[in-house]
């Protein structure tokens, strides 16, 4: 018995994380989910304007402005390459939107000579229900007809740098580990699209100088930590091995040389889970929840939720709450089970949580009065 006990202890100590796969469904939740914006197909991203109206990207290519209970389709939006996971993807406002009016969009674009498409980042201003002053800031290459892994989440850090993700575009052996190629990367730009002089690969022969970190698979969560100002991402693993990472300048996050996942066919991609010079995730999911959308709770609206990390699950169709202690995941909860594929989650200017669900719309989590 004692030896079994010791064995269990050793096993626990040897694990990279304590709560592998353990997710609980709470009996009581501190909210009621209320459908706030209905009849959306695939609301990929959304952002609150200063007047509390909402901009929503539909993957199909429509940019919707939801104001006073009505939906308006915004004109002059970019032509999107509609294929597989591609389309009109994220939307994010400039940190000084109130002064400069810049909004940022990610989408898949056919721009360039080769057949297919790849991830593009643009900025524009909103005027009379149309985009104006459209500027293409970055277009990843080369184009490919592969349907997967566009990445596409956008965030700004406290100094105003623009960060965005581009997935490996289904070419894991070519792209993520090669900094002379796009895809499988997190990028950092100035808000006007120029490359910061101190980006990690500036001056490196042949490198794409917009790259900030590499070795990523498909990050569909990218946010700035409200307390530390660090950039956090989550990314889809293959079968198993979805990860949460803290992004570091010039760092290699290992894909596909190290992973906690395996191929969909069940065969191994690599035996290695760690390697010298490569970053370890802060958390990994086995099996894959297929994470999309990411938000920290900063308000006191929901009992003890402040500081928790919220992540949408496409595969298992729920909203996950990760109770955090700094960079450590303490426990995990399943919320809104069975409502549908959770594509995005954000905290609104009112401190409430908003959740975008495919085929449904955007839900507001109305706090329950205790």
């Amino acid at each position, binding site marked *: 018995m004692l030896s079994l006990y010791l064995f269990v202890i050793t096993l626990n100590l040897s694990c990279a994380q304590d709560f592998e796969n353990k997710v609980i469904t709470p009996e009581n939740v501190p909210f009621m989910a209320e459908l706030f914006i209905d009849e959306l197909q695939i609301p990929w991203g959304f952002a609150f304007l200063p007047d509390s109206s909402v901009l929503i990207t539909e993957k199909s290519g429509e940019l919707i402005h939801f104001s006073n209970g009505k939906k308006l389709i915004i004109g002059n939006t970019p032509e999107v390459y*509609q294929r597989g996971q591609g389309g009109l993807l994220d939307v994010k406002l400039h940190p000084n939107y109130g002064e400069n009016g810049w909004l940022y969009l990610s989408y898949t674009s056919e721009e360039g000579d080769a057949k297919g498409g790849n991830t593009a980042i643009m900025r524009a201003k909103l005027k009379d229900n149309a985009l104006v002053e459209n500027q293409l800031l970055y277009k990843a290459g080369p184009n490919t007809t592969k*349907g*997967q892994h566009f990445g596409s989440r956008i965030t700004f850090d406290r100094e105003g740098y623009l960060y965005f993700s581009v997935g490996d575009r289904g070419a894991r052996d070519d792209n993520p580990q090669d900094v002379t190629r796009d895809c499988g990367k997190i990028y950092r730009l100035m808000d006007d699209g120029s490359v910061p002089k101190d980006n990690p690969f500036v001056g490196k022969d042949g490198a794409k100088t917009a790259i900030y970190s590499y070795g990523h698979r498909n990050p569909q969560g990218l946010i700035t930590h409200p307390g530390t100002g660090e950039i956090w991402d989550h990314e889809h693993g293959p079968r198993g091995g979805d990860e949460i990472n803290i992004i570091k300048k010039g760092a290699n996050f290992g894909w596909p040389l190290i992973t906690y996942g395996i191929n*969909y066919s069940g065969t191994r991609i690599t035996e290695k889970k760690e390697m010298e010079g490569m970053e370890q995730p802060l958390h990994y999911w086995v099996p894959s929840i297929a994470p999309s959308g990411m938000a920290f709770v900063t308000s006191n609206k929901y009992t003890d939720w402040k500081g928790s990390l919220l992540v949408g699950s496409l595969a298992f169709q729920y909203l996950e709450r990760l109770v955090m202690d700094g960079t450590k995941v303490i426990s995990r909860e399943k919320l809104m089970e069975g409502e549908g594929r959770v594509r995005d989650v954000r905290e609104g200017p009112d401190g409430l949580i908003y959740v975008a669900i495919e*085929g449904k719309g955007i839900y507001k989590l109305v706090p329950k009065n205790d």
Partner: protein
Amino acid sequence: MKILIPIYLIAVVFSSVFLFQDSELKESMKRGREIYTDFCVTCHLQKGEGVAYTFPPLARSDYLMNEKRESIKAIKYGLQGEITVNGITYNSAMADLGLEDEEVADVMNYISNSWGNTSDSIVTEKEVASIQK
């Protein structure tokens, strides 16, 4: 003998048509397999087993076998609304995948002839093109 020669010729023509169709199907399935790995596997999984109540199965799916036209339409344009597959109701959305007609035909041939599924007729690009929203 006189009657044997035409029979022989007919047999040769038939079997060569059959063999030709067979290799055509194999080629189409091969391309379809690639499309499947790219666009479908994340939800419908490696053996077409799907996830009960969430992503309908393709393997031994009565819907796929009996509703060929609707299945092609779903792959071509995406699918919204309720469907019943093997007695279970599904009501989530499948996005428009943006596939070309030939790719729809290829992946249709792959899923209709894999994991215990069999289909007597090959889906062609022309057939896919004729199906409208």
